């Protein structure tokens, strides 16, 4: 191992070793005592001599049984409970650092023991919220140089003591806001999520430099890419403020606790750069793409509703995803900074900044009100405004008369035109036109690592409202804008960034200048060397349009970044942007039920019978017409939000309200659900003349599981060639009809040898990178070339590839992060990642995919099997095979009876509701190696979910569909009978005939 050695990793990650190491080098840590009895606990409490205290029982699941004691009585109760719950009867009594200021240092070290700090980060959310779930700000805002330098020296002492010989580390500190006492929280002896953020925040590419340090370079031997003339052995200094805000997905896990704690729950993040903190945080809030426009100014969380004291206190007192917005609600309700500090412990400096933003909103409002009325009076007095009709005074007057200096200051405070339009009762286009006419123009500043001390050569920009515009002159090439995907979220992840990055590479190779716009620091697209020009900007109409216009782009690509750029497509086009590739009209046609049905009719293609309803009563009636089961979902959502498969009117009645609530006022779509249908994802590329299927992926689960969560096999493993020919024909016809120029994804369902079209997306899909890797053809690159006028025949890709190897996709769903969440695959997507298993043997490909998502398929041991009635016949074959492989089978009454009747030896277990030991006990004791459990109803019953939770928590292989279980059996068979070898993916490509 190079860089960090195993010992360093152990020392960094083991609590006790780390604590000892810190004390050895003269650093402070949270004080704590390990105790095994009430008496010892009492002694520890006396010794620590303070409340609150944190109690952490050893070896309990997810830290259960722990808590914070604010007084002696609570302490006794929690310790007693903790000692009881801990299998080793041991609890840690620890000093509580909740509410302390939290800082991070990103440091690097080389083999000459030269150390540098790349970035300091201050958490807006104080201690108690995982740094991944905290709003964070760079550089540190509230430390004097003395305090900062002690932290810097401490960071170097830590990286040296832990023994990271070369590379980067992240070190976290807590600081008592009253005394300044500084405590080391933890260190990551590696490049971390924060290093990615620090790299984007400063322009210093930590991972790239760390890699070079690991192979023997020293910092002074490497150049700073951005300044070219200066070395990498320096510390970036920045003249702007960077804010990161996490993006959450609690709506996907409604049963889970949405309180933010020390366990990370966010699924992505947005970052924004502004000249000041105020500009930066407002830009970041609108970068989140959750409907918020910033801190106030309308939109989600920014309206003028009044909140009661109880709601405000609750939302401020307990950390949660909306807390930042409640700071404004609190100001509006008359809370002072001190009041809010008492509830949140957010540093007063940050709270005052937020207050300044709110005060600006109020000042604008007041100005609008007074100007509006005074203007009305003036209109009578002077005749100069005869042309201003009464109709326009209402919407324009406030804006037209507002002081230009105030307008400029508002923009410098990060207010978007949309916010200003809301506050000044105008519309975005008018605000935009008015401010431009008054000379309040967007200027772009450089991220240069050195606060302008040296010339920068890398065009990495952020927008601001300053005296100077630093956009570099064009190189004379045609410029194409690529709009990225924004923050990672469930349903939209790095797959789309892959496509954007490939598009940029392909177009640079083809002689274009590429202009990337994105707001996600976790991406390759926001590396300063991926595109010719990088704009770290929110993906809103205002921000994207400004870049397009200032750069003088000739075209913009919207079909690679997922839903984010697609949502902007029509508005961009209406504002004169040349959207290249498939037209926004075609994209809309595919989304519009009526237009789409007409297209399918014309092509003679089927879709499941469906209806639309605008009310709950109508929805129930329409479902009755179709006949159950039905699939209901709100319109205009991605990732299957609010989507349900319902088998009866009772089930529908139970959830119909919820479905309408997702997109209030929008129709709800009801489809006849094709039960036990085979689902197929097809990715296709088309240049308007030629269309080629990139790949067909057959789902392992039956239709009903969101394609983002389904495991898939490529090429299709059960469908006959004639059906695939039908699919191919349908795909080409749809591509032609929708005039696809670029990529298209279609989801088909096959039931009783009938082909149904479920959905068409004329854009890059989540599976494009998977397919590209499976066939060894850079589909996204080709698509980008096509969008700029190239033809497939010229690019040398005209024939569909059918690999001779198998590729299996499996997904990662973060159930363990959301204790209490329902564990079942369904129509609502909840996965956050995926893996690919590749092999010449399908069983091995599946086994590899399982191994990659962990824990992998077992080859011996015990299997717990419990399936719903309709799955029981197939469960017999599964059980028989497993028994033959030497597994011991455990089951509960229903399934056990069926298996026993089939002559399979099975050990009976009590149902959870019946007694013990039950399946959960066995799982906890490590006696179960695989669980096969298929849900009996809409959601798994409580006891089923308990088994599944236990399986996930204890890292036991689990199959929740019967088809998944069958695939697992094949996988186990393959593992038993065949050899698992290692082969580079390039070697598989020999299986593919390219031309």
């Amino acid at each position, binding site marked *: 191992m190079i860089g960090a050695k195993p010992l360093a990793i152990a020392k960094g990650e083991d609590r006790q070793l780390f604590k000892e190491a810190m004390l050895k080098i003269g650093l402070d840590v949270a004080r704590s005592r390990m105790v095994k009895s009430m008496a010892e606990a009492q002694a520890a409490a006396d010794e620590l001599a303070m409340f609150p205290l944190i109690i952490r029982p050893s070896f309990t699941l997810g830290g259960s049984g722990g808590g914070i004691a604010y007084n002696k009585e609570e302490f006794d109760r929690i310790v007693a409970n903790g000692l009881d719950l801990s299998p080793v009867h041991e609890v840690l009594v620890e000093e509580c650092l909740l509410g302390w200021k939290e800082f991070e240092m990103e440091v690097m070290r080389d083999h000459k023991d030269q150390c540098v700090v790349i970035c300091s980060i201050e958490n807006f959310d104080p201690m108690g919220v995982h740094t991944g779930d905290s709003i964070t700000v760079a550089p540190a805002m509230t430390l004097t140089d003395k305090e900062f330098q002690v932290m810097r020296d401490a960071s170097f002492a830590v990286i040296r003591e832990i023994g990271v010989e070369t590379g980067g580390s992240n070190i976290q500190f807590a600081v008592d806001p009253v005394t300044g006492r500084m405590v080391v929280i933890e260190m990551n002896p590696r490049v971390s999520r924060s290093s990615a953020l620090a790299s984007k925040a400063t322009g210093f590419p930590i991972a790239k430099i760390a890699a070079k340090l690991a192979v023997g370079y020293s910092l002074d031997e490497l150049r700073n890419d951005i300044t070219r003339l200066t070395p990498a052995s320096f510390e970036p200094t920045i*003249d702007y403020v960077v804010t990161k805000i996490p993006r959450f997905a609690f709506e996907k896990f409604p049963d889970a606790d949405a309180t933010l704690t020390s366990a990370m729950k966010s699924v992505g993040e947005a970052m924004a750069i502004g000249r000041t903190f105020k500009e930066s945080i407002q830009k970041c809030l609108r970068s989140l793409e959750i409907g918020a426009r910033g801190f106030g100014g309308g939109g989600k969380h920014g309206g003028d509703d009044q909140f009661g004291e109880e709601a405000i206190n609750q939302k401020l007192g307990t950390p949660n995803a909306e807390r930042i917005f409640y700071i404004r609600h609190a100001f509006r309700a008359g809370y002072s900074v001190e009041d809010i500090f008492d509830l949140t412990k957010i540093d007063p400096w940050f709270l005052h900044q937020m207050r300044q933003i709110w005060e600006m909103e109020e000042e604008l409002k007041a100005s609008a009100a007074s100007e509006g009325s005074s203007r009305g009076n003036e209109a009578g007095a002077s005749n100069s405004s005869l042309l201003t009709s009464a109709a326009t005074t209402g919407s324009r007057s406030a804006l037209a008369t507002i002081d230009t200096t105030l307008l400029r200051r508002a923009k410098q405070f990060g207010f978007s035109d949309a916010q200003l339009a809301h506050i000044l009762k105008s519309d975005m286009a008018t605000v935009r036109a008015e401010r431009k006419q008054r000379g309040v123009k967007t200027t772009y500043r450089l991220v240069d690592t050195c606060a302008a001390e040296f010339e920068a050569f890398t065009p990495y920009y952020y927008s601001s409202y300053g005296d100077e515009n630093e956009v570099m002159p064009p190189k004379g090439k045609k410029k194409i804008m690529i709009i990225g995907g924004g923050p990672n979220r469930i349903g939209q992840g790095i797959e789309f960034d892959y496509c954007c990055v490939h598009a940029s590479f392909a177009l640079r190779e083809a002689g274009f200048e590429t202009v990337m716009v994105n707001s996600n620091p976790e991406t390759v697209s926001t590396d300063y060397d991926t595109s010719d020009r990088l704009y770290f900007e929110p993906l809103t109409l205002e921000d994207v349009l400004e870049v397009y216009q200032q750069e003088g782009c000739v075209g913009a690509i919207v079909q690679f970044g997922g839903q984010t750029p697609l949502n902007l497509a029509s508005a961009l086009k209406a504002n004169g942007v040349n959207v290249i590739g498939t037209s926004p009209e075609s994209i809309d046609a595919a989304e519009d039920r009526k237009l789409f049905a007409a297209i399918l009719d014309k092509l003679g293609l089927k879709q499941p019978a469906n209806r639309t309803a605008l009310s709950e009563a109508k929805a129930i009636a329409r479902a009755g017409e179709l006949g159950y089961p039905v699939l209901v979902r709100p319109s205009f959502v991605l990732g299957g939000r609010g989507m349900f498969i319902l088998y009866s009117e009772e089930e529908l009645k139970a959830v119909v309200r919820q479905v309408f609530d997702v997109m209030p006022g929008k129709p709800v779509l009801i489809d006849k659900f094709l039960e036990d249908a085979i689902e197929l994802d097809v990715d296709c590329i088309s240049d308007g003349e030629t269309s080629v299927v990139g790949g067909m992926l057959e789902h392992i689960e039956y239709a009903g599981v969101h394609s983002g969560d389904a495991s898939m096999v490529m090429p299709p493993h059960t469908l006959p060639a004639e059906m695939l020919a039908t699919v191919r024909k349908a795909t080409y016809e749809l591509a032609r009809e929708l005039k696809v120029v670029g990529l298209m994804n279609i989801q088909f369902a096959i039931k009783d040898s009938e082909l149904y079209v479920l959905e068409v997306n004329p854009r890059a899909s989540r599976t494009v990178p998977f397919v590209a890797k499976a066939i060894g053809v850079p589909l996204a690159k080709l698509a980008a070339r096509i969008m700029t006028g190239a033809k497939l025949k010229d690019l040398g890709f005209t024939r569909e590839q059918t690999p001779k190897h198998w590729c299996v996709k499996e997904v990662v769903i973060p159930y363990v992060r959301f204790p209490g969440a329902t564990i079942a695959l369904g129509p609502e997507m909840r996965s956050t990642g995926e893996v690919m298993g590749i092999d010449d043997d399908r069983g091995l490909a599946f086994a590899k995919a399982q191994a990659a998502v962990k824990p992998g398929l077992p080859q011996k041991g015990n299997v717990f099997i419990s399936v719903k009635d309709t799955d029981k016949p197939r469960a017999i074959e599964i059980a028989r095979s497993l028994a033959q492989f030497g597994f011991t089978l455990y089951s509960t009454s229903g399934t056990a009876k069926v298996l026993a009747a089939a002559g399979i030896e099975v050990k009976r277990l009590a149902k959870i509701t019946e007694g013990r030991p039950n399946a959960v006990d066995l799982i906890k004791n490590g006696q179960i190696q695989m669980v096969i459990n298929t849900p009996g109803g809409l959601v798994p019953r409580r006891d089923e979910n308990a088994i599944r939770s236990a399986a996930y928590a204890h890292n036991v292989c689990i199959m929740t569909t019967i088809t998944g279980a069958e695939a697992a059996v094949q996988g186990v068979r393959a593992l038993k009978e065949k050899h698992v070898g290692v082969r580079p993916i390039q070697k598989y490509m020999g299986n593919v005939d390219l031309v």
Partner: protein
Amino acid sequence: MPTSKPAVLALEDGSIFRGLAFGADATIAGECVFNTSMTGYQEILTDPSYFGQIVTMTAVQIGNYGVNDEDTEAAGPKCSGFVVRELSPVVSNWRSRLSVGDYLARHGIPGISEVDTRALTKKLRVDGAMKCCLSTQPISDEEAVRRAQSWQDMAGADYVKDVSCKEPFIWRAGDAANHNAAYFPVGTTLNAPAVPAKKFRVAAFDYGAKFTIYRKLVRHGFEVQVFPATATAAQVREHRPDAVFLSNGPGDPAALPYIHQTVTNLLPDFPIFGICLGHQMVTHALGGTTYKLKFGHRGGNQPVKNLETGKVSITAQNHGFATDPKSIEARGAKVTEINLNDNTVEGLRHTKLPVFSVQYHPEAAPGPNDADPLFVDFYKMVEARKAGKI
């Protein structure tokens, strides 16, 4: 606290930057420079080397942690004016006593906020350091530009006499007002070494010395006797010091012939350590020359490579002049350290005499402590000299 009162910054080339006033009600002229440190404005404001200069911070959010009692480098702020992008409306730090605005007002120094400091910095980088005028009073743009242009350039001027102490004194480690202890949060020691038991007497010339230099000398085992810049070699010899220290200070190093002569006189007989202007004084005392840099080095992230060890330190710097390497190599000294950004001289050592000096600030304050071991080197050099080894 920020005000809504207008203020103006005019450069000699006629550029006008408008902003809001803070600090004192005044109109001043000086040399406009920028500092890229992200922390440490209090140390910068009080660093006497900024005498005659109007300092622009490239970092944006200034004043957040206010001003405290300990982090001062002189009895009060020494620069002429202060330019920032945004001044904090509030101070937030457990050690803070005062806001920056109140502090500057109390000492009669004007400040301007809401200035596009990046645009200003780029101008200074491209066109070089400039004469400027900062006014928080109602004066016309023309008047402000005229004042900037008519300011007497620092070239050839002796600024040291304005900031040096008038009488010799002893820097007392035990005096609470000197805040001599290193800053450590309670519970953190970083295993800082104890002060050596054996003390050496150092005669420290105050050319505008930062207090932290005295503090560090004390912490590294010296008894510090401070002399004014005008003290003669004879006065120093009379004190019978074990070593001589030459401090930092403001202005043009070539304009100080009386200091050059004093140092030339002391060179053969004492171990000598110089910092910043002190390094330039060694240069001139040896017969070498200095020249003005286009816009200087001011910040806390400057990489300096030690040519003898090959190692790089991140250093705090604040200088507008530099030593001409050829001029000293001809005079018995060699360049030991260079700035990796522009290869200028950052350190020298005499090949025969126990004399070394650095252009950067090993005392930090503000800035990284990476070069702190230089004080240990100085102590060891004196120790070796006393033992008759050199």
